[in-house]
């Protein structure tokens, strides 16, 4: 007995690695990770070609297979994030564990920023000169900047107050709408303008931006009372998934529906060969998922058209955007008979042609700062 006791470390070690191996073999393989929002690697088929290929296809796939299918994967990841958090690392995976359950992306790198801003101004000059269509640019500030009081005590510096004035300087032809103040004011007024578990703005945030944009785009924003608000619980968004933290309360997600438009609005999404048509801007089936943000306009697609026969103008608006526009555009639909929304990450045709062919009256470029700072598709805008 004493001998066995002396060898306990070896027994535990061998036991652990052996059990992990056995579990790895016998446990049913998962296809999809809800937390990571991606398909998990399955056992790759061995072939000499893939084993000896330059990309080491088999080896890489096999290693991904092992890490994706490690028994208790979600447990290990969650444990790790929470362990690091306890030791004082507030952002072990680039997401701050803030106060009141806020999970906030750390400040973005700024490497693509000045280039992207340059592309936009160039485009605005071009469109103004050749087609005489005005271009408006609106950029949403970072969550960490607006909700600074929710950040942990030690955190990186958010650069919004340094960056936004340089945007204002660069945009001479494009009309620049600075969304910092309207969001900060709404936030100070007690509104939750960003989600706690997602990087997007909430309906309150989008509404504040929509109200601010009216001053430049020339519409009179609807009062909040125009909308029927419905709240849906259980929303776990991107910052939740990225962070891996345990014990995070989900968000509620709201849909603000202007009932006056019932029957008048239609949405047509063109994505490759697929065309989705619906008499509504909200895609309620996504509310069954953890990530409920695609309830607005069905999430990311290259080309979306929204028509409203009851709009207060017969103008046509082109929105060039990232996903922040999905919750904002439904508000705009009250003021334009047709909105075309393109996402440069998936839409590669020149926007100037689109403006000409579709007789666009007004262009809105809407991005979030974080996305704009890292996106390398903005150069396609031309």
């Amino acid at each position, binding site marked *: 007995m004493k001998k066995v006791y002396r060898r306990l470390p070896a027994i535990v070690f061998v036991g652990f690695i052996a059990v992990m191996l056995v579990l790895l073999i016998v446990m049913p393989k998962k296809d999809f990770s809800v937390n990571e929002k991606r398909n998990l690697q399955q056992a790759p088929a061995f072939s000499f070609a893939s084993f000896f290929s330059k990309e080491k296809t088999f080896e890489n796939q096999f290693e991904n297979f092992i890490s994706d299918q490690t028994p208790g994967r979600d447990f290990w990841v969650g444990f790790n994030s929470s362990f690091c958090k306890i030791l004082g690392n507030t952002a072990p995976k680039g997401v701050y564990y803030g106060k009141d359950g806020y999970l906030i992306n750390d400040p973005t790198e700024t490497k693509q920023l000045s280039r992207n801003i340059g592309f936009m101004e160039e485009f605005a000059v071009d469109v103004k000169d050749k087609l005489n269509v005005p271009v408006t640019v609106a950029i949403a500030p970072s969550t960490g900047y607006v909700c600074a009081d929710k950040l942990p005590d030690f955190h*990186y510096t958010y650069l919004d107050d340094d960056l936004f004035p340089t945007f204002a300087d660069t945009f001479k032809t494009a009309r620049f709408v600075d969304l910092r103040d309207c969001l900060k004011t709404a936030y100070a007024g007690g509104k939750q303008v960003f989600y706690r578990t997602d990087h997007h703005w909430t309906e309150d945030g989008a509404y504040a931006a929509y109200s601010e944009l009216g001053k430049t785009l020339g519409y009179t924003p609807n009062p909040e009372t125009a909308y029927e608000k419905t709240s849906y619980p259980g929303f776990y968004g991107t910052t939740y998934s990225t962070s891996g933290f345990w014990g995070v309360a989900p968000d509620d997600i709201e849909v603000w529906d202007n009932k006056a438009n019932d029957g008048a609005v239609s949405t047509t999404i063109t994505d490759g060969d697929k065309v989705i048509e619906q008499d509504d801007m909200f895609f309620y089936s996504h509310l069954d998922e953890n990530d409920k943000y695609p309830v607005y306009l069905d999430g990311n697609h290259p080309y979306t058209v929204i028509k409203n026969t009851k709009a207060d103008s017969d103008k046509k608006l082109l929105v060039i955007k990232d996903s922040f526009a999905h919750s904002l555009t439904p508000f705009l639909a009250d003021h334009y008979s047709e909105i075309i929304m393109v996402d440069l990450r998936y839409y590669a045709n020149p926007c100037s042609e689109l403006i000409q062919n579709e007789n666009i009256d007004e262009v809105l470029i809407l991005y979030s700062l974080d996305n704009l700072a890292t996106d390398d598709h903005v150069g396609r805008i031309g």
Partner: protein
Amino acid sequence: MVFSSLLFLFVYLPIVLAAYYICPRKWRNLLLFVVNLVFYGWGEPIYVILMVISTIVDYTCGYFIDKNREKNPKKAKGFLIASMVINLSMLGFFKYSGMILKTINLIPGVDIPLPQLPDLPIGISFYTFQTMSYSIDVYRREAPVQKNVITFGTYVSLFPQLIAGPIVRYKDVAYQLDHRRETLDDFTKGVCIFCVGLAKKVLIANQMGAMWDAMQNTGQDNGWLGSWIGIIAYSFQIYFDFSGYSDMACGLGNMLGFEFLKNFNYPYISKSITEFWRRWHISLGTWFREYVYIPLGGNRKGFARQIVNLLVVWFLTGLWHGASYNFILWGLYFGLLLVIEKLVLKKWLEKCPAAIQHIYALFFIVIGWVIFYFSDDVGGMSAMGAFLGSMFNFGGVVIGNNALTLLMSYLPFLILACVASTPLGVKLYEKVKAHASAPFLQTVYCAVVLFLSTSFLVSGSYNPFIYFRF
């Protein structure tokens, strides 16, 4: 394949251990040879050929050196030279041809197009040095010839120390290759040493590496204190990464019945640079002393010659670490410091209080890591100069907000690294070693390390092996 990966821990290792202990003793070397090649070929299957060639060449050279040593010493010497030329050519071709061509191109008027060079075969710096030690030791009659090509192949390709050392000299394992006896006590010891290494690598080195990488991308002025904290994090990363790997190698060796020599002996508690190099990467220092410094005459041919010999050895030591000029500079930097210590500083230092000696040694070690880090891939000399400038810009920012955030985020790991750099833990352990509860403490330690390491590895937080490129 690297030890600190899920693939190694939960697939390769349990299968290899099971196969090894099921296998009859006489087939164990063959089994090891095969699994070594799987280990090596994973990720770079084509270079298995290189390993097999290396095995055959040095086996053949060793065989003929042994055969001709008595009757025809010239022929024996010829085979020794052949072995060295082939090994060094292999190393030179794969590791240094790019650097050599770029250097030649610096000559005005010369413009040789750089060919598409193959990736550096993993561990080539380590196993070419090992096989050379074999040929030299056989020639010097310090090691017996190995008649069995499989056994010799097992030595050349032995997976525990294949890719990051220690550089095991043939004579140190010659007997073990044929006559080792695996025992449960050694196995248990191996498990404990392996877990120490795993903790060093995953729980300290990777965290310090994450901190150092982040420190360089904060996008703002880190301040002089921030720069110091960053390079100190890197100093910890490189030590725990490398010594963790050596520990894992020794532990795995124990599990398989081998006993390798210690490669690190708490280098950061040194009181001088001379002492540091007796405690840092011991197997490499031994190799250069035995196969370069002493054959050059060491200190036996007069003072001037000794200085030249030292500088040659340190030039080569630097160059061995990588095909970039900063490594040569790094080697010569230490060579020069060692000469200065030998000449003047030593007597003076010994009179100073211990604290001063530690500060002196650590200061120059850390500055050494600045030189070491900034290879051509990461900005070279100009980046090095800029970084050194930031470290001594005492009039500027003390510490930037982002650097402070990083410091606070990694503080527990930084403190752990400081403590683990000293023999404090081992001393405490020595005290309870005899106590009945010692195995229980070891078990808890191993379990905690395995648990935490698994969580870090699955979490994929961070896992690059710095010593891969050498």
